[in-house]
């Protein structure tokens, strides 16, 4: 089964779109001075890379990787999507969530102690 030109273009566009989103979020992490915006950019980066992993495991004209009684095993193996990226992304989501929780509590504590979330001003503080 071959793809026509439009399908190929849309698949490729999705891939580059995800990479561009990841690149923009890296810019947000590096260049924005606010800690809250850094954390938001980090979540966007994590989500873009998770969708990228799902996209690599995805295939067109497929069924979910759940075996139901009315489906034959040979048909299931031949037409289900790759379950491994989905399992890895499930793990990555939980770990990303734990990291985000930790960073949010740290940012909250920085705000309580210094009264600002601007990294340029936090850098100038002494003590």
């Amino acid at each position: 089964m071959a793809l026509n030109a439009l399908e190929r273009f849309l698949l490729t566009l999705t891939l580059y779109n995800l990479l561009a989103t990841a690149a923009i979020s890296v810019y947000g992490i590096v260049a924005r001075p606010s800690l809250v915006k850094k954390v938001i950019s980090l979540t966007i980066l994590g989500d873009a890379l998770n969708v990228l992993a799902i996209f690599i495991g995805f295939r067109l004209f497929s069924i979910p990787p759940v075996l139901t009684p009315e489906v034959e095993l040979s048909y299931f193996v031949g037409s289900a999507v790759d379950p491994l990226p989905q399992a890895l992304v499930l793990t990555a989501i939980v770990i990303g969530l734990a990291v985000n929780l930790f960073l949010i509590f740290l940012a909250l504590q920085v705000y309580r102690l210094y009264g600002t979330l601007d990294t340029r001003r936090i850098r100038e503080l002494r003590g």
Partner: protein
Amino acid sequence: MLISIVASVALLAYATSLAGALGYLGLETRALAKMFLTLAYNPGLRELTAMAPEAVTAIVWDFRGVDTLYETVVFYMAIIAALAIYRGVPKVGGGGGTGLSLIVRVVTKLLIPMNIAVALSIAVHGHLTPGGGFQAGAALAVISVLLAVVYSFSSYGRVGIDIPKAVTLRSVGLVAIALVVFTPLIYSLVTGAQAYLMQNYVKVDSGFSFPAEVFGQLISGTLIWLNVAEFLAVSFGFCIIFMLLSLREEVIRPALVGEEHGP
């Protein structure tokens, strides 16, 4: 700036798709995926299968079980870090808030039992349908946000949950996961037979096996127990986080700012 980014991405995509540089993307299954799909539920290969029709759960808790175990540890340590930041906060109760209007409160009261039912269903069907312990825990933790927003923070005291209780219930979930993981070790120590940590079914050189079916119902050995234990751990872990975040700022600030910066 924005238009140039969009245009360059679209142009790059068009050029790459013309060249066919991405090969088989979107059409074929990898050999590794075929192996997992074949072994997820396959009663004919009892030494290899995970006996779970849901291939993702089979990978998460059986084929790559240790991975998920350490993921649970990472989540556990993030909550420990949050609790450590809030260590000096005095026990606060009451507050006397009344919450939102009567309509919102009654609708929420009707929604909460449905929420619990959905979360339990996701947890105990994790090995049969998409879902599992973590998703169910996230679904149940919605209730703790609803309580804080709709009924005010004082409602935690009225339903009888506070942070120490939530920590205890979460530890019960984590201990249950550890028990399931170490059951083969206990079996091996008692009987002297060969068994592996996190083992689910019989292996070529080990006779130890969790029951795959109970009274004709497929429970997929360790998978249902791990899902339910993870459900408990994650739901009360989230509950702790939301309770900490909904504490009143003027109550906790003196404890958090510390001696160095004055009260």
